[in-house]
């Protein structure tokens, strides 16, 4: 297992470098000039030339990429001209908040989706299953944006139950001290993710229920509660573990809409704004981070498989 993890981490580095190369090339193919964008409409040609020189933008692209890699290897993700801050400091502010928001929603989604999916599978084609399917389809087909606005309209504007704004504390701990503000953003994320997870869980559980070992467990007189918890749950979880692994990068950058609607500045919105403003180094920094987290997420899922299914060996 140790060798496997080391191998996968090595792959992660190669994949991440590949992603940065592709991203770097694509960014330089974009029309327009960073200098003009940053310095604004008043900028004189001399000021633009000076800016390009100061930031190495008048050097060949390969050399600019080398400079980027050099900085990256020294732990420097670059500088955001939009925010006038280092990318490191931006991410240091936003990542803990993103992890809290996305992490809470992911955990809640899993905790709700597993029992709902199992309940639907066990009572397949009965009322519980039909209602669960209907709710899941409804939530899954609704844009996250619409869900968020509906929640705000009813629970914030009409009835003033929860605030429309996420906690504005700059730390994850500070946000937790205002739990009411977390309810709607977490709920908006959870409702969509839960709907997706519960469908996978239901499908996986139905497959598992048809296995011979399930019939054997029941035949030897094991109580239904134990059949479900010991045999059905564990064997059905592999699909959800895969989803959770793939969802880990989404925790960081996949909450763009929620960040916009609930006034929750995070890395997803940062990337979006950076893309609009040619803030290259922010985009590169977040790309590197997400590339790494994607590989780590897959690694976590692989380890999860081995834990859930002893037959799996690496």
């Amino acid at each position, binding site marked *: 297992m140790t060798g496997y993890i080391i191998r996968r981490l090595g792959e992660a580095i190669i994949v991440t470098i590949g992603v940065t190369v592709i991203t770097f090339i694509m960014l330089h193919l974009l029309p*327009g000039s960073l200098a003009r964008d940053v310095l604004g*409409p008043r900028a004189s040609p001399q000021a633009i030339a000076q800016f390009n020189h100061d930031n190495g933008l008048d050097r060949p692209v390969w050399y600019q990429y080398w400079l980027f890699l050099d900085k990256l290897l020294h732990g420097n993700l670059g500088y955001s001209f939009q925010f006038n801050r280092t990318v490191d400091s931006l991410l240091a502010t936003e990542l803990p908040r993103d992890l809290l928001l996305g992490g809470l929603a992911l955990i809640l989604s899993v905790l709700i989706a597993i029992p709902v999916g199992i309940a639907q599978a066990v009572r397949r084609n009965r009322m519980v299953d039909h209602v669960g399917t209907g709710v899941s389809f409804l939530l899954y087909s609704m844009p996250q944006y619409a869900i968020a606005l509906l929640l705000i309209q009813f629970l914030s504007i009409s009835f003033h139950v929860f605030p429309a704004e996420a906690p504005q504390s700059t730390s994850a701990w500070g946000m937790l001290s205002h739990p009411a503000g977390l309810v709607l953003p977490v709920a908006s994320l959870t409702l969509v993710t839960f709907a997706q997870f519960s469908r996978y869980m239901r499908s996986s559980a139905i497959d598992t229920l048809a296995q011979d070992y399930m019939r054997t467990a029941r035949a030897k007189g094991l109580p239904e509660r134990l059949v479900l918890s010991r045999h059905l749950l564990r064997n059905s979880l592999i699909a959800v573990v895969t989803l959770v692994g793939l969802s880990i990068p989404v925790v960081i950058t996949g909450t763009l809409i929620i960040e916009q609607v609930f006034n929750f500045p995070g890395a997803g919105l940062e990337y979006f704004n950076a893309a*609009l403003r040619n803030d290259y180094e922010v985009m590169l920094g977040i790309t590197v981070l997400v590339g790494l987290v994607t590989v780590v997420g897959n690694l976590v899922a692989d380890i999860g498989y081995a834990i859930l299914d002893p037959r799996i060996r690496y």
Partner: protein
Amino acid sequence: MRRVALLGAALLSLFAAACGSSSSSSSNGGSSPAPATSSAPTAGAGLTSPTTPPGAKQPGGTVYYTEGPSAPPNYIFPMTAAQVCGTNNISQLQTMMFRPLYWYGNDYSPTMDPDYSLAEQPSFSNGDKTVTIKLKPWKWSDGESVTSRQIAFWMNLYKADPAKNYCGYVPGFFPDNVTSVSTPDAQTVVFQLNKAYNPEWFTYNELSQIYPLPLAWDRTSLSQPAPKSDSGHLPDSTKAGAESVYKFLDTQSKSLGTWASSPLWSVVDGPFRLKSFTSNGQVTLVPNPDYSGSPKPTISSLVEQPFTSDTAIFNEIRSAGPSGVTVGNLPSQYAPQIDQVKAEGYDYNRAASYSINYFPFNLNNPKVGPIFRQLYFRQAFQHLIDQPGWINAFLHNTAVPTYGPIPVSPPSPLLSVDVANNPFPFSTSAAAQLLSSHGWKVVPGGTTTCQKPGTAANECGAGITAGEGISFNLDYQSGVTTLASEMNDLAAQAKRVGINLQLTSHPFDTVIQTAVACKPTDADCGWTAENWGAGWIYAPDFLPTGESLFAPGAVANYGSFNDPQGTAVINQTISGAADQEKQALANYDQYMQQHLPVVFGPTSIGSYQGDAGTMIAKNLGGYAANAYGYMTPEAWYFTK
């Protein structure tokens, strides 16, 4: 400020797209020509005097103010670098702590406010080549007086090369046109200029850039003791020293996390000081107890709240009401819901900022540039802009018409001309007539072609060939429903006179970056018309003159307009006699209205372009609209 106004427009627009818009897409189609003269502005009246809510005035209270979407302050040093030059830094942070020498925006009038200024009106002598400034008695919070030495400090830094990055800098103008600065006494500064300038122009567009800087900032490291007025040699007095000081202050200003605790930025001469600044951009300002000016602040704090989107601003205003947002800029796409928002407990101020909206043609485009250079074509095209219709149908009466380089609203007492007169009202028949009288065969719904090439008065004009059609690309900012509606309407109207507009849209930054001044042989000269959805805010050049916009080689003359007579009228506003400025401005406006260096269109109101105005809690008194969007919370108070 201009840049962020433009960026603000882009942001607002993008989020409008992301978050949906309730803007109407109806079009009046323009089937019937508008009256020969324009309708009166339907918005932009603004608050002409501060709010005076009923109830007893009470001291204290916290005002919550909305920052622009994803635009928190990020630069505190008032010699604001070009890349961070915006409303978020200047009017929402710096000017409340560090006062400019002269204050512009006398409430809603686009004039200087002598009461808020740190100096008496400048006096001009020596044939308007010498400027003498007398400072008022004023104190910094560290007990030092505001003296002439501090003006010299600013000028020394400004003349250092790195400071040429200051966003007020225009090559050849201030401070390049100042040959010497002297300080005969502590309260007097004398500038010698390289030639005579119109006093009004010099006051509004050059002296407007100056901020006295405290001597406590005249150092190159925090470990050095803060200099005092009795310190001898100070580093800024040499060019190398000034560069070092500038770089130090610039670096400190970029260290956002240290702002609140910095010994530099705690020295203020404005009514407020910074109490805290969080990493997500929340600003808390509290009164400066040593403020020399008047009125003194009565609120206990001003909290500027960062927001991620227009939707988030609107949701917060609707859900929290005045207890969560005391003063908020309403995003434009929510203009149809103004009445609902007012019902939450707000007054609504539809003040226009002193700005104009336009988009340029590329007069040097190698293919269609010859057509754009024909005055009759530009006039015909201006006839296709249905400003009253757009304002009504698309902008929900939160915009004012624009007919020339001088804003229609707010009205300026510095002008002697009615700038609200539209010489080219919406009329497709007038546009067709102009084309056909210049040798074009107008084919409504088809392609109008040149039938009479040549340079005579009734021919198409130089560089236009027989059979050539009028077809070009009009690129506009994506994500703005109102702008898309306007451009679609324009394309439809153009088609009615046989002009084929190919509409494309791109993000704001792409549009503004594409519109570059160029020569026909340049590789980047292929663009034809670029509309970034905003135009120009007159700040810190508060007098609406054209040296930055329409003079040859001007920094924002993107379309390469080059008209010797036009340049002459611009120069007259800069260098004309003191008693002739009103006439010079009138001549300039009239000339540009007729010669149309750009295509003028409706200008959105609000302190950011794209805002539908400002919501003010009903129990907040003293709030006044400033023509340039500056904030004066020292005058605000709560009532019971």
